[in-house]
């Protein structure tokens, strides 16, 4: 059973009376522990796809299943719950709250999970130690470098123990070296059993993932899976046909 499955997903927008097809009949399966990148130029629909994969948005047509359960057109409350428990977001612009310090930022998802303050503090510290930021707890985001901010964001994404990490151009605002460190961190997370989805326009970054899905005009145009080439464990049944 796939962890996350999209079947015939389309997303339509009305723009000035004209219908825009941001996603056009996309089917996709993502499994546990996969490290996958979604690549495409701007306007290709990859951001829309990311929104749907991250349960920030619902598709106009088609179905999305998480762990075999069809989510369909869930209410915003249910979507919020799924985002809180199953998805960890990492954004290009980090999206930390500037008024909160590092620990408080990391605690944020746990607040909405309804955890008590002691548990929150404990788990935030652990997550921050994991990304080597155990010494910057009381700093504000503005006092940190880009790489450090992104690591805080990753700690925040991990802290509710989600099965899926969704990273939107996570290295876009970082220098090459820092970007590599962040990518290494993602690779480690995938190796530990989490599904990590990298959304990027940069083929070089997409090249680090074993599986790459290229999207253009709302359709999947290329689907490369290194595992199918025998580099990993081949398992044709699990991989959907590339359109």
């Amino acid at each position, binding site marked *: 059973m796939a962890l996350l499955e999209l079947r015939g997903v389309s997303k339509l927008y009305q723009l000035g009376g004209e219908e825009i097809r941001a996603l056009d009949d996309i089917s996709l399966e993502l499994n546990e522990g996969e490290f996958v990148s979604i690549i495409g130029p701007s306007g290709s629909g990859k951001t829309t796809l990311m929104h749907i994969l991250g349960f920030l948005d619902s598709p106009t047509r088609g179905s999305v299943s998480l762990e075999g359960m069809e989510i369909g057109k869930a209410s915003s409350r249910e979507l*919020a719950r799924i*985002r809180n428990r199953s998805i960890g977001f990492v954004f290009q612009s980090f999206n*930390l709250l500037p*008024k909160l310090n590092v620990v408080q930022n990391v605690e944020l998802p746990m607040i909405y*999970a309804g955890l008590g303050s002691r548990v929150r503090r404990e788990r935030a510290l652990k997550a921050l130690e994991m990304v080597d930021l155990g010494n910057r707890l009381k700093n504000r985001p503005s006092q940190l470098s880009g790489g450090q901010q992104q690591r805080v964001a990753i700690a925040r994404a991990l802290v509710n123990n989600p099965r899926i990490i969704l990273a939107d151009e996570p290295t876009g605002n970082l220098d090459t070296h820092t970007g590599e460190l962040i990518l290494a961190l993602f690779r480690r997370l995938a190796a*530990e059993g989490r599904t990590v989805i990298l959304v990027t326009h940069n083929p070089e970054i997409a090249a680090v993932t074993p599986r790459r899905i290229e999207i253009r005009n709302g359709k999947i145009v290329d689907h490369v899976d290194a595992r199918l080439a025998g580099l990993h464990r081949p398992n044709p049944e699990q991989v959907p046909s590339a359109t």
Partner: protein
Amino acid sequence: MKTESPQTSAVESLLSELDLTDLPVGGTNLINAVAVGLKEIWAHKFRSALTMLGIVLGVSSLIAMSAMVKGMEIGQKEALLASGGLRKVRLEAQSVPVQQRHLRDFARGMTLSDATAIEAGVPDAEIVAPEMRLEDNPTLAANGKLFRTYMTLGVYPKQAAVSEHVVQHGRIFNDIDADEARAVCVIGTGIRDELFGRPEETGTEVIPIGKTMTINGQPFTIIGMFQLYEGEQDRKARLAAAAAKAAVLASGKKETTGPQRGRGRGGGSYAFWIKNNTVYMPLNTMWQRFQSSRSNAPAEPRLSTIEIKLHDFDRLNQSLVKIRNIMLVNHRGIEDFSFRTLEDWGEDIDRFVRNARLSGSLIAGISLFVGGIGIMNIMLASISERIREIGIRKAVGAGDLDIFTQILVESTVIALVGGLVGLLASRFVVKAIAWVAPTGNDPVITWTAMGVAFAFAAGVGVLAGLFPAFKAARMNVIQALRYD
């Protein structure tokens, strides 16, 4: 969760320790929301303070208004109570009505038998006190001074209870005094002031017990004196004047207040003035010494009034009907009497209080409302500068309800803090108003007023937060995240 990687890492140990399956999901943590709200207020101290100011003023003016009305109400009710209160009914003799003029010769006036009949026939009458008034403002003389008063009454001793009189010095007359029609009287402090000098002038309080006073030329022994009746405000003024006078005397200067004079009285103090200028003597004394000797004196003692104190004001109407029936039987159908109660006075007070409260509340309410608009305005400004924050919170799992609660709590916290400050400020506002525009009665801040004002502030906070909170909760997460 299965892992293909053989090495155990920090992540894995973290995962194994954390069991998320039994967590409350999407629960709104109210304490946390309050904490976030307080933090947000603290982060914009000046802005929050300005916003709160509206609520502070609204709450304190609401309390101040209510305090002033309460003060006036207390002053008025004091006077009403001093006059006998609402349970007192005066049954007054009056001339035969026009339509019964032909029966005039059969009218026998109000007599003691009426009082006895009422006492026997109206269980609701707690005290029935017949009263015989000396007409035409008798002249009192003692100590070489004259004074005319119109409250010279022949009564039973129990009359004191009906009119709320308290004998402070000496005693009230007893049955022997009455039986023997002794020339004894109990006076109010006002009479003492006029004939023997007021304490402010003489330096010490004169207690003229045992002294002789003439009433229309007849010598009477003063055997008792009532206590001084005055409103709370009069008492304060008197003490302040005494203190001022003492200070003037101590400094050796001459007084500059001019000669002693009556200064005119109005409103509540009039009731106290009348009460202080009362002379009581036994009913029988009044009859024997003043009334029976008159050339046109009736055969039976005629009363001017019967004062009745009822057990229960709520049954006033039924009691009045009963009394009237008894009187009509006794008077053979001739209605040569009328009732007088203090209901109208009581109603006037209630009406005044209600009107003052209503108009005051309206004005203070408007200022609270304006304060609420201020809060709504600031919350709208606040959410539009926090669109991205709201987007981030939603992305990490905040539900619409969480965002809604957060904004609502923030506006409510502003209102509550403003309300608390307003409660404290109201004391000073009341002082300031009393200083700028002193009235006859000191404002009285009540707990009820404070409670109501605070509750209103809280309500305004919630109402003001509803729309901004709704707006924030309905923000689209994707657009909010993209917002710069």
